[in-house]
Structure formats: C-alpha cells, structure tokens
C-alpha cells in the first residue's frame, strides 16, 4: 500500500485532483471577495452556486448547447443576486438571516423544480443527465511528462479561473469602480458624503458576485458531476466565504488558499481509495480546516489592530 502511495502516478493524480477540487472554491471565493470588498459578508454564495448549477443543468436538457446553458446559469445567478440586493438595500433585511434562509430556500427549490419539470421520484436527484464540458488538452504542455498530466486535461472553466482572478483583481484594485466599491464597503456614510452612489455600486457588486459564482455552479453540475443533486455544492460556498475572510479580500492570495483547501479535499478523496480509513473522518477535514483557518486569521487580525492602536 505504502509503495503505491509514493509512486509517481499517485502523486500526479493527486495534484491533478487538487486543481480540479480547487476550481469551484476559487469561483466561490472570488464571488465572496467582490461582496466583501463592497462591505457585505455574502453567505448566500452557496445558494447562488446551487441555483445556477441547477439552471445550467436543466437548460442543457432542453437546449443541448453548452454556451446557452452557461448563459442561463449566469442569468439565474444574477437574478438571485438582484433579489438579495433588493432585500439588503431596499428592505434592509438582516444579512445573516436572509442569506441562511436563502440557502434553505434554494435547497428546497433545487428539489422541487427538477421534480416539477421532469417528474420522477420525489426528493431524489434529477434523473436527467446534463451536458458536460469537454476536458481540454493543451497542445505542447500535454506532452511534457509530469507537468502535462497535472496541468493539462482540465475543464475550460478551470483555465478560466486564471482570467477571472485577474479580472477580479483588476476591477477591485485598478479601476475607479473598484475604488468606489472599496470605499462603499469600508465606510458607506463617508463614501456617500463624497458623492459616491453607494446603492448603485453595491448593486453592481452583487451582480458581479452572481456572475462569478454561477460559473462555479456550472463547474459543479456540468463538469464535476454530469447531473444535478440538491446537496452537490456541499458547503463550498461557505468555504469560499471563509477563504475571502482568510485572505482579507485579496484575489491572488485567495487562489493559493483555495488550492490548499482543494488539496485537503483531494486528500480526503485519494486517502479514501488508497487506505482503508473511514471516509467520514476524512470528509470532515475541509470543514475543520476552515474553522481553524478562520479562527487563526481573525485572531491575527485582532492582534494586528491592537498593535496599531498601541502605537
């Protein structure tokens, strides 16, 4: 058994699945970062991912075109974010409570809508298979012995994370919109006093969050699995929120942390197949890691602030 672990093939497949598992986490954390920079601790990332993965999957059953499916998923993500923005900005709903309820609501919808459309047994997963993204073989790189096996052959959405991460960083830190957004997030009142349309900026940030998260949702139902079940996001949205908290809203750092979480996820998967270890204990690991990470970083943050005050 141990021999098998240290062989190259094992390491390569492990590193491959690290990237694969990190992809939805990167999308989730990018969405959370946009919301966080605009001053909202958006716990509804989970709901957004779930609803868009469902819409993507359902659309692909009716219109077998993957681009249309992704677009539909993005529209669904935006609509959910708009609803959230309406609740927050217009009705001033309690943020935590709304997001939590939105998560339960979408879980309910995720069971109800596929049933209403396709029938089948109540409450179980959707019986129809979804279209899936093909794996992309990158020319040249795929021929490099070890690296090719790890980096090549992923979903197009995995490669898109590089673009999305850069875009998110660019929008937040290099555009005037990003500056306004950060100002509105840091201190809405003073932002308003210098003439920033805080509501407009926040609304746009919600829409951006919706778009980014729905790509993560598409990855879940159209590549990670080729069907849809109500429990498929499995807390990845929350982990994304934690990652954005851990990194203080910095996109590139978030990618690194997402890779660490992806590694923990992948470890749980590979150890399960390699050793005869109870899967349940391994499956706890990403969640325990999140708790420890959140605690550690919050603690350091408090310490840092105390130091600043002491000066």
């Amino acid at each position: 058994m141990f021999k098998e672990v240290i062989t190259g093939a094992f390491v390569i497949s492990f590193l491959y699945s690290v990237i694969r598992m990190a992809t939805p986490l990167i999308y989730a954390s990018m969405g959370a970062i946009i919301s966080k920079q605009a001053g909202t601790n958006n716990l509804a990332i989970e709901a957004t991912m779930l609803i868009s993965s469902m819409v993507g999957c359902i659309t692909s059953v009716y219109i077998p075109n993957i681009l249309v499916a992704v677009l539909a998923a993005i529209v669904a993500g935006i609509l959910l974010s708009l609803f959230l923005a309406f609740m927050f900005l217009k009705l001033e709903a309690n943020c935590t409570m709304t997001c939590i309820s939105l998560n339960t609501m979408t879980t309910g919808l995720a069971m109800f809508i596929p049933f209403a459309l396709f029938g089948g047994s109540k409450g179980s997963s959707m019986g129809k298979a979804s279209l899936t993204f093909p794996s992309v073989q990158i020319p040249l790189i795929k021929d490099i012995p070890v690296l090719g096996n790890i980096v090549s052959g992923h979903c197009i959405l995995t490669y898109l994370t590089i673009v999305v991460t850069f875009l998110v960083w660019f929008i937040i830190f290099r555009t005037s919109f990003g500056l306004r957004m950060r100002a509105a997030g840091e201190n809405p009142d003073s932002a308003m006093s210098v003439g920033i349309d805080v509501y407009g900026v926040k609304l746009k940030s919600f829409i951006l969050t919706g778009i980014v998260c729905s790509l993560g949702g598409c990855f879940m139902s159209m590549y990670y699995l080729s069907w849809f079940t109500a429990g498929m996001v499995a807390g990845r949205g929350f982990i994304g929120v934690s990652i954005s908290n851990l990194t203080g809203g910095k996109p590139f750092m978030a990618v690194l942390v997402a890779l660490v979480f992806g590694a923990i996820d992948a470890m749980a998967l590979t150890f399960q197949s390699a050793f005869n270890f109870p899967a349940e204990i391994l499956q706890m690991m990403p969640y325990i890691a999140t708790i420890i990470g959140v605690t550690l970083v919050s603690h350091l943050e408090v310490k840092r602030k105390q130091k600043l005050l002491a000066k």
Partner: protein
Amino acid sequence: MCDPLKEKMRRIFIYNFEAFRILVAITIAFSVIAVLVLLTSDDAGAVSYWFILGPLTSMRRLGGVLELSIPFILCGLSVSMMFQVNKFNLCSDGIFYIGMAFASVFALKLDLPPVLFPIVIIVLCAVIGGLTALIPASLNLKFNASVVVCALMLNYVLQYLGRYILLYKVKDPALTYNGSAIFPKAATLTHFVPKTRIHTGIFVAIAAVLIIYWVLRSTKLGFAIRITGKNEDFAKASGINVALTVLVSQFIGGALAGIGGAVEVMGIYQQFRIDTLLGYGFDGLLIAVIGKNDPLRVTVAAVALAYLRQGAALVNSYTDIPLELVQVLQSMIVIFVAAEQLMAGLKHKMIVEESEKAGGVQHV
C-alpha cells in the same frame, strides 16, 4: 372630524406593528407558494385540502402534529436561547443530529433501570450538546472568529461525526440497511396515546419551555441574558459579565438541541438509522424568529410549524406536490420577517399622522 374607528384601527396597527409585519410576511410567502402550486399541480384543490385540513382528518395524523412539535419546541428554544444574545450560532442542526447519535450509543452500551435510563441519556446528551455549542461561541469570543461560518462548518463536521458513529459504532450488521439495533425497552420513551407515537418526551419539552420561561423572567441570569441581547455596552457598563452570559446562553441553547435529539431518537425512532442532518435547526431558526425569542410564543410557533409540516407530508403522499415546497415557504417567511423595512414606510406615515394630530390638539 376624524373617523374614530379609523383612529382606533391606526392605534391597533401601530402598537401591534410587529405582529402585522409577521402576518404580511406569512401572507406574501403563502401567495408565492400558492402560485407555484397552481402552476405545477393538476389538482390544486386536493393540495389545499390536504395542506390545510389534512392533519385534522385522523387521530394518527393529529398525533403526528404533536410528535413533531416535540423536536420543534426544543430546537426553537435552542435557537432562541442562542440568538437572544445576538450570536447567530446555527449549530443546533448538527447538535440535534449528534444528540441522536450519542443517545443511541448510550442506549446500546449502558445498562440502567427503566425511568432512570432515559433521564441519564438526556442529561448526557444535554452536556454534549452544550459543550459543542460552546465551540463556535468561544472561538468567537476569544479569537473574534465569525460565529456563523464556524457554526455552519461545524454542522458539516457533526454530520460526518454522526454518520461515523452510525456506520462504525452502532451499526447492526444483521440489518440490510444502515441502522443500529432497536434500543432496549428501558431506554425508550413510552408512547402513551393509543394510535399515535406521542411519547413522554412531550413532558420534557413542556418542562423545558417552563424552565426557560422562568429563567428568562425571574432569575438574575435571565435578566443578564436579556440585557446583553438588547445592548451589550449597557450590559458591560452595568457590571454584567457579558462573556460569561453569552457562554451560558450558548451552553443552554446547545443543551436544548442535544436533549431534542436524544428525546427524538428514544421516542420516535427507538433505533438510530438516520444518516444525514434533519434540518430541525433551521426549523428552529424560523420558530425563534416568529416567536421573537419568547418561550411561550416559541411553543405556539413550533406547534404551528408542526401542523404545517404534517400538512405538507400529507400533500407529499396524496398529491403530486413534493414535500420540499414547504421548505421554500418557510425560508420565505424568515426572509420577509427579517426585512426590517417591510411596511416601515406605512408605520412611519401612521406615526406621523398620529403625532400631527396630537400636536394639533395641543395648539388649540
């Protein structure tokens, strides 16, 4: 000059504004669900019959409402205890589940005389639940970690912990499904109403309501909890140990959820065979929000939700609408109740009118 009836109505509206707001939230949620049902069901009449009157149609179904009220009351109390001090510690769901898991371990491994056995199990599960609830709360107090994120992550951890206990500690290999052996008779709660599964756990729930009511109303601790929840700074300034108060209320909340799990598994299932979270923690959230953290109102809300759930279960089995729709309904109610500004404009207008009138009288 002014219509006295209209005047009176306005007074009633202003003073019972919260109740009206909840009513409006419930109405909005029900209307949305009605539209969904009309769109998807072939027989909306049957759906509304089973949903509204279904639970009253037989003794067994009416009993089902009370059976379900037991965990709902305990979870509602649990969440309201935790929320009372403004900590969104949402781990009741996971605690309820491991309460069931640990209760089954104790029921199968210990051997005690009847009556004493369930009591011991309930106390042990209460302690386990209370200590578990302290994890997110103390991480928040000590390290300033987000209590919501920690609690939600903890729910997943507890789910896998419970499943681990089920599969590796209590699983009866003779069974074709994943389940423990049936508990010994001494470790179960008696069903005392014929034709139903209403069990003695209902007394535990009632006792919990009364004790919490008493603690909140007439003890020093309850006072400290209420003041801390209303204004933490004021509590600190008045010499209340805020951190300790928060921890105690989280412990009590967790203990209630643990008791809920233990009572449920000993009363209803009498074996452990559930491999996922039941979502009662989130039902507790709705109950606590509607019940405004008051134990007696929480009880009413819990029974009402149990009625709703029983109706939904009947709709699920007799019509073409699945059970999950009630989950959508529930969360919509919470969202609209949480919306502070819902109807606030109307309230504002009425208060302005009222005060203008009062001012006018003074001038004359």
